[in-house]
């Protein structure tokens, strides 16, 4: 096998800027990631919990499976929304989860409560990822902190949660 043939194919193009020579400032990076990750701020959602036990989805071979969990009672009434690549994809309340599948490559996550918690992650096909929306006391209402869990922690947390279903509130 020759070196040229052996070289791996480049990862899917990132939406991140190409200029790698000068590292961006922290503020600039945060703003950029927030623009890439978070959904529109004028969209509001309703969420309810499905009480019946749900069958978990099968892991697709060509996509990454992402569980977003919130396995605590803290801040029961506070919604924690999650956006991926600029689109709201789910909302949790206490002891809720939802899931989604993503194409392999880089993706940008934004968890929102009183604050925004941002995370960028390259996902691989056929893998399962667990993201926890942690809840902490904030200034006015609860704050969220998005955290990537390992498989063991993720499965443990998921077992405590019930599926959430969300809907976009209609504007008058």
């Amino acid at each position: 096998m020759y070196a040229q043939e052996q070289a791996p194919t480049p990862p899917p193009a990132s939406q991140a800027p190409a200029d790698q020579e000068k590292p961006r400032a922290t503020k600039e990076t945060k703003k950029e990631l927030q623009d890439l990750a978070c959904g529109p701020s004028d969209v509001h959602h309703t969420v309810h919990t499905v009480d019946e036990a749900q069958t978990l989805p099968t892991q697709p071979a060509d996509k990454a499976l992402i569980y977003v969990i919130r396995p605590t009672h803290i801040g029961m009434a506070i919604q924690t929304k999650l956006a991926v690549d600029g689109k709201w994809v789910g909302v949790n309340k206490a002891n809720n989860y939802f899931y989604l599948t993503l194409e392999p490559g880089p993706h940008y996550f934004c968890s929102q409560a009183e604050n925004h918690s941002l995370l960028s992650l390259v996902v691989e096909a056929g893998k399962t990822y667990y993201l926890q929306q942690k809840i902490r006391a904030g200034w006015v209402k609860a704050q969220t902190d998005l955290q990537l869990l390992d498989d063991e922690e993720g499965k443990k947390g998921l077992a405590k949660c019930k599926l959430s279903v969300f809907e976009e509130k209609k504007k008058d």
Partner: protein
Amino acid sequence: MVRPEIAMIVLAAAIGGNEGAVRALPAQVAPLQQQEAPKPPLSGSSAPAPSQDAPVATPPATSRLVLKDGTPVQLKFARAVVSSQVIAGEKVDLQVATEVRVGDRIVIPKDSLAQAMVTMAQARRGMARGGNLQMKIETVRLATGEMAPLRMIQDVKGGGHTAAMVGGMIATGLVLLPAAPLLLMVPGKDAVVPKGTEITAYVDGDVSLDPAKLPSAPAASQPAPKEAVPQHRNGSK
């Protein structure tokens, strides 16, 4: 065959302040080989004829050098990487810290370019929680100009001081209650890989090189540097 995810060598770097400490997993050493490749067809002009006055150490043009799977490559970061200043998917440049040889031929020159990709980045957060940074070392440029794949994942966590913050809140609350919530603003530390941090990645799969494309062999009077030997984790190969 080793599954790629198992084959990844995971290093954990403990960050204290801005210092990054890297430790490698123990490795099993296997002998390096120079492998004879099939001879090219006699006809055609692409195969260079062996030179009559070439040094004895130079392998014949018809044989191929093999950079074995698991050969360690010492790399250093060309710039600091800070978890709050990168986004997953971005490329990070590294340089080869020590040349790699097969026999007496330099196959990866010192200062050659290597690349890593940021696979996870999270800035430091409020409430004293640290940042997170994961990178996957991907490729290195060979002396022939071709790219060879490398394997390794580096995982760096920024320092948090949640316990100190909680302690501070309790202590402050006892003295001056309204001041306690201000400690929520105490930030953690970003995960940082300082510029110049050295790490070891490993060649991923055997890489065959055409000796004719390599720089000429060093003079016989020069001391021969230590030859690279491939390393495999836990004898998994």
